[in-house]
């Protein structure tokens, strides 16, 4: 049995992402967050399980659905909310929005919404860091859709060639926007087998089981840090809400209601809560306190974002170039 501190930490990490994103969903219709948001509600265990295995100095790269990865890696909540509100105090001065989060202090080097685009960048950051003699590991998060981009394969090849300390984390949530896997990839093989074909060590696990995620991630991190090269991890999970935006969209009929309900039952947070309660690690009250703490933290962040100034007009042409 894992120690109580870790379990509690994992729980708090997932809960925090959930509460933050649910609040975003609630506030979004006010039309003050004027940029696309891709919520990861339902998928929190992957972000939290993987990032828990990392050091603060390790690098994380992400894609369009990055709030969870950013927060799990220790990214600053206020800067994130301010960024989504388009304010000068945002982590990217409002220039990036939800799809371009960054927090250098936390090693969250960047998220971009071009599918697959951060995969080679993550490999490069890990390799470049190793070239400089540092012992950093990099993780790249991406979806099942990103496996269809050629650049993913180019990245795997190079990472193995140079034994780059990088971990490829695929969040397989079965859909790319409204498109199920079946219309995009041949059904007869598992996703992680592709990476295996390249010769990269690869594993698959339940992405809603934060402990399973964490344990695979831990092994991969250890191997990478020890010079053993890359690992590919596939985690099956499920996005609860619409691809982009605050709502549920199962009325659209692109995925079976039953599938959704099945996955909702397998909520990663509820599962761990049960475990914590059963094992007596937390009490109902303790959990309630955690919730309120995160909620106030989020309220403060929203307040901060709202009160923050807009970026000055002079920022428009700033930072195109160094000088």
């Amino acid at each position: 049995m894992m120690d109580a501190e870790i379990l509690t930490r994992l729980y708090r990490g997932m809960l925090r992402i959930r509460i933050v994103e649910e609040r975003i969903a609630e506030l979004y219709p006010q039309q003050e967050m004027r940029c696309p948001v891709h919520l990861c509600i339902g998928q929190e265990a992957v972000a939290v399980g993987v990032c828990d295995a990392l050091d603060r100095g390790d690098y994380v790269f992400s894609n369009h659905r990055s709030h969870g990865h950013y927060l799990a890696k220790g990214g600053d909540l206020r800067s994130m909310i301010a960024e989504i509100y388009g304010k000068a105090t945002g982590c990217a001065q409002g220039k990036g929005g939800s799809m371009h989060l960054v927090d250098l202090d936390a090693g969250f080097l960047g998220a971009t919404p071009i599918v697959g685009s951060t995969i080679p960048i993550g490999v490069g950051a890990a390799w470049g860091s190793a070239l400089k003699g540092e012992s950093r590991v990099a993780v790249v998060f991406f979806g099942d859709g990103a496996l269809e981009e050629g650049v993913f394969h180019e990245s795997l090849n190079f990472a193995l060639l140079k034994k780059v300390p990088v971990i490829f984390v695929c969040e397989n949530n079965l859909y790319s926007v409204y498109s199920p896997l079946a219309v995009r990839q041949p059904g007869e093989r598992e996703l992680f087998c592709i990476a295996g074909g390249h010769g990269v060590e690869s594993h698959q696990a339940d992405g809603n089981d934060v402990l399973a995620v964490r344990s695979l991630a831990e092994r991969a991190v250890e191997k990478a840090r020890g010079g053993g090269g890359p690992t590919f991890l596939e985690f099956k999970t499920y996005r609860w809400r619409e691809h982009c935006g605050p709502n549920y969209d199962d009325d659209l009929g692109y995925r079976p209601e039953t599938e959704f309900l099945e996955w909702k039952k397998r909520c990663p947070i509820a599962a761990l809560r049960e475990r914590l309660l059963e094992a007596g690690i937390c009490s109902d009250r303790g959990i309630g306190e955690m919730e309120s703490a995160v909620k106030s933290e989020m309220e403060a962040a929203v307040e901060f974002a709202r009160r923050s100034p807009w970026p000055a007009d002079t920022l428009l042409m700033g930072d195109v170039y160094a000088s």
Partner: protein
Amino acid sequence: MPRELKYAQAINEAIDLCMARDPSVYLMGLGVPDPKGVFGTTLGLRAKHGDRRVLDMPTSENGMTGVAVGTALAGCRPVMTHQRVDFALLALDQIVNQAAKWRYMFGGKLKVPLVVRLIVGRGWGQGPQHSQSLHSWFAHVPGLKVVMPTTPYDAKGLLISSIEDDDPVIFLEHRWLHGITGPVPEGVYRVPLGSARVMREGRDVTIAAISHMCLEALRAADTLAEDGCQAEVIDIRSLRPLDEKTVVESVRKTGRLIVAEGGWRSCGFGAEIVARAVEQAFPSLKCPPCRIALPDCPTPTSPRLAAKFYPRAAEISEAARAMLGIRETRPPVPASAPLDVPDPSFTGPF
């Protein structure tokens, strides 16, 4: 009264008609058969034409463009759709090295009748990687044809011409045009590739505009008219082949030229129009032409910065007034007006 359709419906109808007439036409792209149907432009087509001819695809822009090129060689007429121009950056080997060149480099033995629909994102924080236009890039490449319809009428007529054309056509749709309405005749009609359209006649200044900027140009022309300035507004429509004649003749008449486009200024399409006008109508020019274009920075996401980033009617009319020596009269845009949505009905996120 003529029938009115939305731009997105006009696109839809063009594809529908072409598919009905020619079994070799098929439609492919991310989200093509999904419930939103690429901003409504592909809704219902699968039900009508079947899942072999209306299909989704893997997120493999370069590979799938190559696949489309291959089917074109085999006698099909693919219509490929990307929801953002930015994604097509992954497919430029196939678009530029291959599709644009196979006819020429194989001595005319092969042809690639491919249409690539690319949607230019804008507003609601599309930001740096979801709002590039890049029409100037495509218009630089021999072997490609490039069109950017502004009205629902042209969207349908140009798309039919594009699908029937034997060369690769880049068909750029500005996201903010999908919702505008206008008269669209039923049945098949064609707007020829390579013809510009005078949207409004005038004698004082020529405003040559592209895509969504044509609407801004028309608005500018309205306010200019109040000041006694008659602006001629030309919708370029077809960037390659370019209807140089229509622009040059207008400039010869007015002696003044403003080019308004939604791409970056440096090395942009506006420079080409200016160069052509100067080369062909130098003696008629009363003052230097003026380019209204995006400033040379990536698209910022914050609505506040985006509002500064995109030039609008006011910039155009201001440029015209400066050329004509007319004093500024327009009230400044109030700071609180939302400038990152095409119309008030749009509530995000895409």
